[in-house]
């Protein structure tokens, strides 16, 4: 297994070597350099920042990690066992290991129609000028914080999906990002659906060993142009010692549709900003989130539904089940600009506590400048209900079976919203494995 990490960490010297080895268009190099300066200027986030108040990263040290050594290409024949693609007829797939693309394929059926899929690193060299405007949109703000800046400067092992106007890709595209123990993943995913295009992308992460550590500092940018339809799934399934810092954002244009489903099972600590911006009238976004934590995992999600245009709809449902001493934080914001009249926005977060020592913070927020809107939010946190348990037990269920069933049912309500059967099954399976691991259940 190649670990391919330069020992110099994220130093200036390492960055210069990294840049020199990449041979990229000048505009991109400039972008990287600007972000690098920003990375160096910005302080580490601290618990005094509102966004980081509940997420303590004092134990995280940049100098334990470093840039991948591009001079020794990852030679691994790692295949892993992806969850999301099992039994699915894929239109294409891509695999990265420790931030380097090790496989990328798109069936000719789609290449013939102008679809582009594969390594962003390679494709940005080939299609630089065509991709430049999308980079320059800065869907994810590179200067947002130290992690977004580092990522913008050093991203590598990225994945690109581009679907031209009106092309409907009816076979899902799959991407797997793998991390070897104490590896570094700086992956960037860029999805562009031009006007009227349609596609489904399934991406997932995995560690080569379940208890392997490492760092992911990444981004996802989804651009859904007018009338386009994207279904995007990302399943974060890193090993339980991985630090996961991610900025993820979608732009959905006029009459565009986005169904974005995230699953979060892995990592030691995850700090994710998941934003959707509805940029044109009549855009619709559905966000589904499923989290299952255990041990001392800490998953922190900042979601943002930004209504910039009128007549748009956004609907977010996050559900988390927490075991042991794990912790989740959800901060949700619905922001409605002054011009975004007739907005219909919803956000909800439900947490199911499976142990006394778990903790879920749920902080919904509204910031509304338009006056003709419908915005609602809700959140619940609770334990498995004793009366439900008793009811199931009177039907012959053991206590543990009853707990598992109730937890499965809790998540089923999210799965019901997911229109892709294979994804529903795969997530159900992944969650099911966790559910069947529920060993003890604290009696209240």
């Amino acid at each position, binding site marked *: 297994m190649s670990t391919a990490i330069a020992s110099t960490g994220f130093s200036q010297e390492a960055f210069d070597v990294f840049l020199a080895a990449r041979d990229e268009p000048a505009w991109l190099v400039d972008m990287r350099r600007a972000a690098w300066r920003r990375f160096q200027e910005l302080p580490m986030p601290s618990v005094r920042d509102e966004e980081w108040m509940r997420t303590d990263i004092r134990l995280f040290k940049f100098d334990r990690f470093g840039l991948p050594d591009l001079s020794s290409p990852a030679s691994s024949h790692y295949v892993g066992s992806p969850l999301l693609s099992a039994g699915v007829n894929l239109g294409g797939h891509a695999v990265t290991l420790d931030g380097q693309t090790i496989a990328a394929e798109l069936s000719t059926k789609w290449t013939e129609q102008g679809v582009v899929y594969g390594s962003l690193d390679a494709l940005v060299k080939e299609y630089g000028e065509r991709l430049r405007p999308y980079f320059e949109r800065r869907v994810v703000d590179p200067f947002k914080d130290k992690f977004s800046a580092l990522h913008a400067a050093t991203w590598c092992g990225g994945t690109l999906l581009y679907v031209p106007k009106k092309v409907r890709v009816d076979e899902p595209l799959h991407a797997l990002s793998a991390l070897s123990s104490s590896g570094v993943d700086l992956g960037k995913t860029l999805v562009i659906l031009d006007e009227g295009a349609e596609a489904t992308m399934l991406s997932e992460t995995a560690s080569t060993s379940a208890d392997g550590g490492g760092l992911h500092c990444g981004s996802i940018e989804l651009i859904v142009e007018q009338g386009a339809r994207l279904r995007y799934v990302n399943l974060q399934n890193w090993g339980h010692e991985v630090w996961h810092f991610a900025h993820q954002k979608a732009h959905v244009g006029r009459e565009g549709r986005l169904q974005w489903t995230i699953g979060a099972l892995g990592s030691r600590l995850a700090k994710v900003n998941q934003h959707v911006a509805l940029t044109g009238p009549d855009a619709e976004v559905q966000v589904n989130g499923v989290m299952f934590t255990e041990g001392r995992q800490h998953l922190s999600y900042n979601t943002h539904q930004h209504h910039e245009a009128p007549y748009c709809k956004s609907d977010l449902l996050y559900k988390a089940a927490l075991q042991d001493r794990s912790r989740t934080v959800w901060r949700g914001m619905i922001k409605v600009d002054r011009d975004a009249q007739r907005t219909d926005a919803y956000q909800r977060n439900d947490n199911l506590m499976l142990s006394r020592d778990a903790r879920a913070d749920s902080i919904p927020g509204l910031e509304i400048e338009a006056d003709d809107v419908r915005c609602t939010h809700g959140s619940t946190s609770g334990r498995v*209900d*004793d*009366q*439900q348990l*008793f*009811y*199931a*037990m*009177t*039907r*012959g*269920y*053991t*206590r*543990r*079976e009853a707990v598992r*069933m*109730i937890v*499965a*049912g*809790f*998540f*089923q*309500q999210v799965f*019901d919203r997911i229109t892709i059967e294979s994804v529903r099954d795969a997530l159900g399976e992944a969650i099911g494995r966790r559910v*069947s691991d529920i060993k003890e259940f604290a009696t209240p």
Partner: protein
Amino acid sequence: MTETLKIKNLHVAVGGKPILTGVTMTIRRGEVHALMGPNGSGKSTLAGVIMGHPNYEVTEGTIELNGKDILEWDATERARAGIFMAFQRPMAIPGVKMADFLRHATTNVRKPDRKEGEQLIPMREFRKELRDKMTQLRMDEEFARRYVNDGFSGGEMKRAEILQMAMLRPKFAILDETDSGLDVDAVKLASQSIAEIGGADMGILIITHHDRLLEHNTPDFTHVMLGGRIVETGGVDLARELYTEGYDKVRQRHPEDAAVEKEMAAEKKFVSGVA
């Protein structure tokens, strides 16, 4: 030998507060018992404690199934031993389909020694049986795909309870106000179905205020509960008296228990006033 469920001098408290104060009753398989009594007299408490609800503390007395003390058994064990209760207020389990819930339940009850993860009743066999039972109960097929009691009307919940009883085929069944929430025709159907399911096979304890559920299930015994005790046991005539004339005469015949009833009601008011 007839199988029996025997309750002897049962005293039950909730949170330290005595609710049942010496209940004795023996149900044999094949018998129908009616349990009547004003609201708050302790009928549901008796049902819950027979089923093994963990909140009820038995302070004195015994519950025996075929001579075996079952007080230490949890609800799972009691269910697998053939005791069933149709809840007065069934619980919803969102996200769990009725059919899946019942397939698991049916397997567990029919194979009491089943360990978790072991095989369930084959899908086809189960589906067929479920469909037959649902047809018998005139339930829409769609019912099986709905989440357990989630968004059910009162009547739908009660019918779902009967369906569960039909699938689990218990030896002893307690029906706690299974007629409430059902319209006249539905109660008739329920009464008929219970008789068909039970036949001579089941020992049934029917908790009710009305006569309709008893129409096809003529009680061999009628018990009246007042203030946490069974104050009278009679035949079908007693049931008739109670649902036509109410409980005033019973109260007159048992002034001490009526006083306890009053006290319990006052305490309840006090407790809920505090909460």
